[in-house]
Each structure stands twice: as C-alpha cells, then as structure tokens.
C-alpha cells in the first residue's frame, strides 16, 4: 500500500547537477473553478452539437457527461500530473454517479405528478368503483382498506416490537436468546414481501378453507414485515436513554418494570414514534402481500374480519393499470391518480416522522 503513496517527484535528486538544488515544492494547479468550467464547457458543447445534429435530450445529456469527465481529466493531465488527473477523474465519476442516481427520482416524481394531479377531484376521493364502467369512479374503498389494514398491522406490530426491544435492551443482556433474536430480526428485514403474503394465506387457508381473502390476513402479512423495523428502531432509541436516569429511579425504590414504563419509554418516546411512523410508511405501500391475501373488490368494506376481499391503494393501482377495462384510458388515469395519493400518504408519513424526531427528541444529554 505504501508504494502507492510515495511520490515520484524527485527520483533523481542525487543525479542532478549540483548547481540546480531547488526541487519545486509546488506544482502547477488548476484553478478552483476548473471543474465547474469543464462542466459548463461540456454542457455547452454537447448542446450546440446536439442541436446541430438533431439529437434527443438523452443523447445530449449522455454526451455532455462523458465529455465532462474526459475534459477535466485531460486538462488536469496537461497542466498538473498523472496522479492529480486520476483524482480529478474519480471526483468527476463520483459526482456523475450521484447525478445519475437523481435522474430516476426526478423523472418518477415528475411523471406521477403530471399524470396524477388532474385526477384528484372530489369524486375521486368520495366515490368507489361499484358499478363504474368507463369514466368516473373513485378510490374511497381503496383508501379505507389501506388505512384499516395498515392500522391493524400497526396494532399487532407496535406492542410486539416494543416489548421485544425492551427485552433486548433491559432484560436480554448477553443471553443466547437475545443474541439470536437480534440477529434473526436483522435477517427478517430481508424477507420478501410476497413470502409474507403467502405465509398469511397458508395460515388462513388452514383455518378458513381454500381461496380465503380477508383484510385481517393483510394485517398479519404486513405486521411480519413491520415488526423487525419497529424492533430495530425502538431498540436503538431505548439504548440511547442514559443509565443515570434508570439508576436514579432505582435509587428511589421504583421497581424495574415501573422504571421502564415511567422513565425509559417516555424519555425515548419521540424516537419510538419516529421509528413506528417510518415502519408504517414502509408497509403502507406494500402491494404483493395484499394482492395475495386481501384481494380486490369494487365496494367499501369496513370490516377487517369479514370473510371477503378488501381493496387497498397499491392493489387498486396495480389492477387499474393492468386490467383497465374497455376504454383503457380511464382505468389507467385512475391508476396514476391512486399512485399519486399513495405517494402523498407515504411521503406525509415520512415527513411527519422526521418532524417528530427533530422536534420532540430529548436534547443529547451527553
């Protein structure tokens, strides 16, 4: 490794004639604005060339990207030295990768906004798809389904996840169960969502018979995906509670369980709420398990436990696009509208979580 660090600037110091003793301590450097200049030059050159040759936007952008990398590297090579040129090359590549990563985010946001916004009318939120053919119709049944099923999943996951985190932090210590639990919870975060749906179906099929579709099954499937996220975030938050607080409580004679309920959990409440909200946001957009166990329907269903399918927003989006009906355009328009509503819900939950985390978290005591 060290050979890569040694400079090659003065290999022939002793062989040089004695008259010339000065070794240059500084090398010519590109000015600070060099990367920006190279970028501006590349964009301008690609733009002019593209317009002259009639290229598309994608071709111009790709050419500008390549030209930028080549230009800054070549310039550095000519003025500075090979090592500096390589550094410039990697810097340009790293920033290019970031720019490429932004492209899908921007284009996805733009597409969904452009196609979804015109759909958001009053009828879209209050109507259902019952007896709707062609234009019109709404997503009320899907919104109700998503809210109920997600709520059900949260009601199952939060107590189980929080108590598991309490066990890991306060009771488990270094026991074998605690170590395996920590590890398996991590592994569980990687369970494919469709497997969770198959699990819920297999379980409910044994109880209710084949072909079962039930909203509560969706809650079970989602809670399997949600619990590991809740455990992880709660565990992290509980560990942040300073030991001083616990010891102060013990010193006053408060038993351990009351200390946990009255001191430890309230102290970390903001963080727990943040974690739970993020977990809800994650499962609210899940499609595959609900496709399998919650099924699809055209009308509102308020009963999680009835032996009938329950529509949800992601499933609605999927079916509206893939089976749009006879004038395909109306169904596909509704799909974009539902996708936009879904994204808005998930983003709102994300922002809420960040806000709660930033606003109410206890200031760092240490």
């Amino acid at each position: 490794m060290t050979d890569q660090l040694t400079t090659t600037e003065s290999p022939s110091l002793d062989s040089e004639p004695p008259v010339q003793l000065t070794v240059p301590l500084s090398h010519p450097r590109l000015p600070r604005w060099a990367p920006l200049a190279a970028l501006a030059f590349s964009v301008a050159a690609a733009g002019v060339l593209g317009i002259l040759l009639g290229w598309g936007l994608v071709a111009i952008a790709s050419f500008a990207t390549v030209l930028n990398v080549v230009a800054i590297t070549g310039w550095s090579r000519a003025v500075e030295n090979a090592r500096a040129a390589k550094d410039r090359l990697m810097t340009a590549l790293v920033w290019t990768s970031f720019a490429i990563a932004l492209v899908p985010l921007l284009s996805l946001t733009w597409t969904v906004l452009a196609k979804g916004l015109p759909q958001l009318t009053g009828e879209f939120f209050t109507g259902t798809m019952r007896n709707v053919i062609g234009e019109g119709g709404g997503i009320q049944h899907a919104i109700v389904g998503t809210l109920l099923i997600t709520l059900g999943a949260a009601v199952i996951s939060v107590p189980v996840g929080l108590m598991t985190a309490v066990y890991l932090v306060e009771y488990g210590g270094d026991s074998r169960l605690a170590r395996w639990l920590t590890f398996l919870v991590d592994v569980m975060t990687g369970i494919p969502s469709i497997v969770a749906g198959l699990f819920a179906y297999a379980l409910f099929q044994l109880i209710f018979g084949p072909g079962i579709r039930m909203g509560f099954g969706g809650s079970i499937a989602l809670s399997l995906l949600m619990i590991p996220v809740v455990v992880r975030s709660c565990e992290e938050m509980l560990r942040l509670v300073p030991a001083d607080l616990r010891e102060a409580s013990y010193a006053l004679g408060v038993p351990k369980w009351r200390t946990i309920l009255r001191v430890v959990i309230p102290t970390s409440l903001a963080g727990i709420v943040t974690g739970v909200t993020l977990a809800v946001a994650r499962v609210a957009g899940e499609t595959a398990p609900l496709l399998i166990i919650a099924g699809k329907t055209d009308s509102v269903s308020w009963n999680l436990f009835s032996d009938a399918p329950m529509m949800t927003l992601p499933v609605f989006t999927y079916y509206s696009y893939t089976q749009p009906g006879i004038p395909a355009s109306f169904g596909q328009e509704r799909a974009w509208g539902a996708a936009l509503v879904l994204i808005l819900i998930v983003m709102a939950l994300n922002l809420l979580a960040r806000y709660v985390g930033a606003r109410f978290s206890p200031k760092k005591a240490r």
Partner: protein
Amino acid sequence: MSTTTTERGTGRPARQRGDVVFAGVAKGAGVLILLALAGVTFFLTFEGIPGLTGDDSVYSGKDGFLSYVWPLVYGTVLAALIALLIATPLAIGVALVTSHYAPARLARPVAYTIDLLAAIPSVVYGLWGINFLAPRLVPGYQFLQEHVSWLPFFAGPTATTGRTILTAGIVLAVMILPIITAISREVFLQTPKLHEEAALALGATRWEMIRTAVFPHARSGIVSAVMLGLGRALGETMAVAMVLSATGVVTFNLISSVNPSTIAANIALQFPESSGERVNVLIATGLVLFVVTFAVNFAARSIVARGQIKG
C-alpha cells in the same frame, strides 16, 4: 415475595410480582417473533409440499416441479445480477459523495434525498417502469442490437415495448440503490479519521486516500451491503411483475420480447387466478424464494456481525 427486600446487594432494584410479569411479557414478545419466523417456514412447507408432486396439468405445460421452477430461478437470479451490476458502482459513488465529497452542509440533505427512493412504493416503480422508462429504452436497445448483436446478450430482436429483463433489472437497480448506499455510507464514515489524515499528510490525493484508507477498512461492509441489495432484488415483486413481459424461457438474450420470469413476479401474476393444486405449486416456489433470500440475508448479516466484533 412482594414489596422490597432481598437483592439489595446485587445492585438490582427490588423485585416485585409486576416485575416478573413484565419481564415475562417482554421475553414472550421476543419468543413470539422467533415463533413467527418458524411459522413462516412451517406453513410454507406444509402448504408447499403437495405442490412438489402434482399432476402434470398444474405445471402449465412443464413436466414436474423442477422443470417448472428452474426457469423462474434463472430469471430471478439474472434480474438480480443485472440490478447489482448497475446499482453497486452507482451506490458506492453516491455513498462517497455523502461521506467524503460533498461539503458537510450538503451531505445530510443528499443522503436524505437518496433515502426517499426507498420510500416510494414498488407499485409506483412498476407504473413508472412500464409507462415511462421502457418506451424510452427501446432506441437504446435498437442501437445495441444493430452494433453489438454478436454478443448473445444483445442478439435481439428488440422488444418494441421495451419490457425486457434488462429494463426490469434497471428498475430493480433503482430500487436497491438506497439500501446499498445507506450501508456503504455508514461504513465509509466509520473509517478512522487518523488513517485518512495520515494518508493525506503523506501527500496522497483524495482518491488515493480513499483507495488506501477508506476502501480497505470498508471492504466487508460493502460486501454485506451488496448482499443485502441482492436479497432485496431477489424478492422484489411488483415492479418486475409489471415491467417484465415474461414467457418463462431460459435465455441469455436481454433485450428481446421473450424473457424468463422471476419467482416473485410469477406468484403475483398467477396467484389471484389460481386455485387447488396450482396454489400449492406457487407456495412451493415461494418457499424456494424464501430459502434463497434467507440464506443470502443470513450470510450478509453474519459478515456485518463479524465486522462489528472485529473492530
């Protein structure tokens, strides 16, 4: 038995009946999670076994479970590999931006922006992929077919809809980018400051510092990040189900309209219309997927855990 007393010397608080109950409930919740995990394995196996030895009619033209599941496994692995090939270099680049290149003030918003990619529901990725991305990739595929069709990957003929396994791989790459980025960023940030400064003090350029100080330190972290991304890509369902126009063949051709399907996408597409033994067959393929992703995640987390103990 009740109230205070006894364990005063041990430094523990007094032990009450409430304490015993509470500790029991906490432990019970943990055990419940383990039971749920065991339950997943058990119920999938129980419902899947009848699907292994069904009548030929339930395997949609294939003779037996193995020849039914093999093209699906192939497609799953192929799509995931494409996704990894695209996402890994990008993710490492983005992680470097947020850990070493961007000014401190920008780094957090940048990391948060990339995290937003993970928050977008997969069905929306599917919509975007089929409606926006796929048609725009067709000219690129045509270019590939015209100029490099001697490579078996780009033999063509190009799918006019653009709904190929390569498109699916690109969408998957976007979806796994955030997780690889997040974990790589974390391990990059854990590089000892002294190592970095030592490298810089010896005259290393920023890239040489990253190559000699950051990467060696982060190697195991990157490996596990990539494996977690692999696990995510193997199990991703809706985006692939919507984007890919699948016919269930085994082929190297990445840009034609004849593509292998993936296990997860196949289940999502077939399940709603299936009944009887067909359901058991699909659950059996789900079990295969579960075992594969579990193994990948298990290995990835083991590497992470070992790294933590080491240093």
